[in-house]
């Protein structure tokens, strides 16, 4: 069920990217999509009442395997957040430069390229 919610968040972000005319709102839409994907990855590794994936002394391997959360999605999400930060920084920098050149954030007025 919760996966459907994640997908709905993803689609909201996609709607923002496709239909909004303000550059800042497009950037926000992309961020929302990215969070949806990150949330999805984190949920894959979620386990109720899970323990950290560290094998302590006196713990049997079977019990560990049953209770520990999956650490891989967390590592993936960390990487993906860092990549997202890089993209976001570049996007915002370009948006600032565009504002300096065109004096507007409205993409319907930014149309020097056509054909």
């Amino acid at each position, binding site marked *: 069920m919760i996966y459907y919610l994640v997908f709905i968040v993803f689609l909201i972000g996609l709607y923002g990217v496709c239909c909004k005319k303000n550059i800042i709102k497009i950037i926000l839409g992309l961020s929302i999509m*990215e969070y949806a994907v990150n949330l999805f990855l984190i949920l894959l590794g979620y386990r109720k009442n899970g323990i950290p994936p560290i094998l302590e002394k006196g713990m049997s391997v079977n019990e560990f395997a049953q209770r520990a959360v999956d650490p891989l999605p967390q590592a993936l999400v960390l990487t993906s957040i860092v990549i997202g930060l890089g993209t976001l920084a570049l*996007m915002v920098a370009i948006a600032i430069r565009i504002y300096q050149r065109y004096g507007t954030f409205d993409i319907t007025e930014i149309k020097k*390229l056509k054909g």
Partner: protein
Amino acid sequence: MSTVILFVALPIGMAFLIPMVSRKLKWFPDVSGNITTFILLLLSLKMIGNYGNYYVGGWKPPYGIVLVFDELACFFLIVVNLIAFISTLYAIEYLEKLFTSKLRYYSLFLLMVGGMNGIILTGDFFNLFVFLEISVIAAYALVGFGCQSRELEAAFKYLVIGTVSSLFILFGIGLLYGKFGTLNMADIARFINKTGFDEAVKFAFVLLLVGFLIKSAAIPFHSWLPDAHPSAPTPMSAMLSGVVVKACGIYGLIRITYNIFGFNEFIGNLFIFIGILSMMIGVLLAVTQWDYKRLLAYHTISQVGYIIIGIGIGTPLGILGGLFHLLNHSVFKSLLFLTSGSIEYSTGTRDLQKMGNLVKKMPVTSFASLVGALSISGIPPFNGFWSKLIIILAAIKAGKPAVALWAVIGSILTLASFSKVQKYAFFGKGEKFDEEIYNKCKEVPHLMKMSMVILSILCIFGGLVVINGTECILKPVIKVVSDGVLPYINKILGS
């Protein structure tokens, strides 16, 4: 086998070294950038025949990251590093006049090359995503490198569409991980081979397919390309059209359809449909353009259509045609972009109507442009002819004569479009011919000439060499693709 890691480590390491060192040493970015790409080219040529896997950190798959150096990866590495070397050679004098910050250019450029080498080598899905992002983020920054209003607009458009496609790919990878609990490509292929396509796998496949099709700019997803490719500095445009579209897009398509999910008739027909659409619409849009670089960018869409058709036909002959055309396209399209950059360098304009009679002022450039134009439109001894011929033959042999007919029509329209370029720019003049531009322009410096001449020679003789030596040059590459899923799994995981 451990030299394989150099393909990734060397360019990325140099990318970080250049900004640190070259504030003191002004000559350092040029020299180190060229030497790095040259070493990568030599390395990729030297490694032919030396195939195997490299386990990063000594962890065996499916637990660790594995770099897969097989024939297909070797082929793509040669293409990437060849064009990267020519492009850096050209950049030395080109950037001197038109752009100020060489250090940032080379740093981003090497980052991009390292990312692409990583995409090609990796055998792990998440690692593929990371390398993809490294190379495309550098590419976004390089498209907007000039910081003029048009370039920023193109960079923003590329950035938004590219990020959406990357997120589709990441979503697909997440679904596959949730389904199978592994990220190793061969391991996932093994599971899919065992269980078959169910709903989740289909959804993941569609997400990955759309992501890679956006990256390779096939027609319904092409809208970023005609803006982004002309806006970049010329050596970068050559790199974008010649290599980035292929390493980030086409390579991913080939790997996931043939080696991981398995090829079938439906996917093949889908590819052929998208290919014909890209080929025809791309070339029709190109015919009406007056901006030389924009015209070339539309031709990239059209030629990528040919490559996708070749892959979609699915017989070994079709794949041969597709991959051979990929190699040829990266050579002649880079050549054409370099000539457009030379014209911009000496005349200061990209508008075909304002140029004219350049053959008298710039003989080397116009010769190179003629060679490129004849290659791209498929005139006999040049390399474009052989690969288009193979694609057409493969289509006829596979019982799809309509595809062959479309390919021929596309080729004729390409010829029409390039005869327009030759007439207006080099061998005649249009109505808006600008006398002032003509008088002050002169031939470009030597290194720029040299890089164009190298690519021209490859255009003229490369096709003949490869077509005569297909048995030993391209056959092993085709075998990796057409053998499909099982040999790939066995190669990485052991049988």
